[in-house]
């Protein structure tokens, strides 16, 4: 394949949940690419479809109720949605690795840390038991867990939250994936530990050359770690740009609202009140007519309420889904 082709390409992805109280359009026509080695951030508020996008790429949706109803997910040109279960299992943990928010639930409580890392290495790389254990020790040292050899025999509950998340990073990167999907990897951690983990993740990413898709609800985290950013709202992408471009020139009223509603260190003296985004996130079980942000948007007019704005390029490599992208409120 040609060198400029993206590593991952998601095209018009639609994922719905079918439950007793209706159909939730969790992901509703999402398209984006991830380039080899880049760090892409996906931000948006609770329920906007970030995790479901990630789970759809890995085909890990809850069975029966969650279904991909449309679109394609191309990894180096190959459509993952067409693969059988076995082939998909080979992709997960090898070419695409994932880290979740809660490291406790992703580790097996009855196996030692060493056994779990070694197991992951063995499955994915077919190493011998002894080699796998040696590699596990190396990995622990790499994520700066001191006294690695002794700690291999510890169980997950003997590790702190930050150490468990470091183990998850070690396991995820142990088989040199092309893409690491990290879904809120630091949200459950303390501020000082969060800073350590993000730093570590980026260092290891540099070393292995993996691309990272970092999912977070926190714009500040994106500002500090990502090269490109996708902003989601109600199951769709509303804005996409390179990170400094997005922070310098946010085009979508939702992005602008988010940026001015986050309290910033050092800004309080100047602005006493925070800018609010009035109203609430829409209920994704109800069909959305027109722009999903219209009920909260200071610029909304009849056109907005009648017809959904497509994601289009307004500035170089800077897309937004808004009829009035960039207009002042």
């Amino acid at each position, binding site marked *: 394949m040609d060198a400029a082709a993206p590593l991952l390409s998601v095209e018009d992805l639609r994922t719905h949940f079918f439950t007793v109280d209706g159909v939730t359009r969790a992901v509703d026509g999402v398209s984006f690419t991830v380039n080899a080695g880049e760090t892409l951030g996906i931000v948006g*508020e609770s329920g906007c479809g970030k995790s479901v996008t990630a789970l759809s790429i890995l085909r890990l949706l809850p069975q029966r109720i969650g279904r991909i109803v449309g679109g394609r997910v191309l990894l180096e040109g190959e459509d993952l949605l067409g693969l059988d279960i076995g082939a998909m299992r080979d992709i997960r943990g090898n070419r695409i690795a994932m880290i979740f928010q809660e490291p406790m639930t992703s580790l097996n409580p009855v196996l030692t840390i060493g056994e779990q890392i070694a197991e992951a290495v063995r499955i994915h790389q077919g190493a011998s038991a002894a080699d796998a254990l040696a590699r596990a020790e190396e990995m622990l040292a790499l994520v700066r867990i001191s006294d690695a050899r002794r700690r291999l025999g510890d169980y997950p509950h003997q590790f702190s939250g930050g150490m468990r998340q470091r183990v998850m990073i070690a396991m995820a990167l142990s088989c040199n994936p092309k893409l690491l999907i990290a879904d809120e990897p630091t949200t459950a951690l*303390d501020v000082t530990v969060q*800073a350590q983990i993000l730093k570590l993740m980026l260092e290891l990413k540099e070393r292995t050359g993996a691309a990272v898709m970092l999912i977070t609800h926190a714009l500040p985290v994106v*500002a500090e770690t990502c090269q490109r950013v996708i902003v989601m709202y109600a199951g769709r992408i509303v804005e996409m740009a390179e990170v400094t471009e997005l922070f310098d020139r946010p085009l979508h009223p939702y992005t602008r609202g988010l940026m001015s509603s986050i*309290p*910033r260190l050092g800004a309080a*003296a100047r602005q006493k*009140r925070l800018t609010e985004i009035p109203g609430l996130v829409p209920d994704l079980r109800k069909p959305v007519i027109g722009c999903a942000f219209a009920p909260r948007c200071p610029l909304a007019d009849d056109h907005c309420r009648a017809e959904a704005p497509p994601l289009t390029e307004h500035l170089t490599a800077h897309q937004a889904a808004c009829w009035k992208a960039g207009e002042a409120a």
Partner: protein
Amino acid sequence: MTAPVLSVEGLTKHFPVERGILRRAVAWVRAVDGVDFDIAPGETLCLVGESGCGKSTVARLVLRLTEPTSGAIRLGGTDITTLSESEMAPYRRKVQMVFQDPYASLNPRLRVGQIVGEPLENFENLGTAERNERVGAILAKVGLRPEAAGRYPFEFSGGQRQRIGIARALALRPELIVADEPVSALDVSVQAQVLNLLMDLQEEFGLAFLFVSHDLAVVEHIGHRIAVMYLGHIVEIGPKDDVLAEPAHPYTKALIAAAPVPDPRARREKLVIEGDVPSPLNPPPGCRFHTRCPFVFGRCREEVPLLKEIAPGRRAACHLLDQPA
């Protein structure tokens, strides 16, 4: 100077770790270990620090939801530390609480009108009509429609439920509201609504807040003074602007450095401190921060640094501050 609404002195809470059928205490979690502060009328004191440092325990002690191991709590000059439940009654209404979890903290079987009206029922002898009127007025204050009174908590979003919790806390016109991470569970766009509401209410009613949070940016926004906690101790306390602009304690510096900044141009080599917060079961001897402090020296490992005045209204606990400059 006006008398403080709240002052605590030497406040301490050690939780026993019990073993065996006799439930003998085999160890103690030193959750809060000798904390002093006061809050003036209309003032917001923010308590910041990382998970497990004892913030919620301080909040619960102040409300007498947990009994202190030692120390004193004074409300408007009266020592309430050892008052009985019935002696507490007149003080209960002066201090109200807003909780972190807007989902768990409201009784799902009561209508909003009953939730907000309940404290009025307990403390004030009002007729039904009068009570409903008061409830309606409070709901309006927190930005909810009067119809909300007839609905149940599950019919509301997180931000709206937090407003209901605030309305309940306001019903008795308290002097002090203890708010434990009141916006941490909310989305940023909704968080701004609730923070603004709290500041408006403070201005209107002269409320004082003890505001617990781990988010420094939120604290900078809402606080007048900041107390930074680490493993059960206050390591630094002072006016917000001074503490944030010129932190004196190495832990405060580390916290500020770790807070992500929403500006990609501000990316910089950060002072990232290593290691995790140690367990309060076996806090490190000497300065409790010494296992992670980039400036640690000999004395830190043996001697506990005391919280000393470093400038008018500012105190910090670090041996470095004793060194001649």
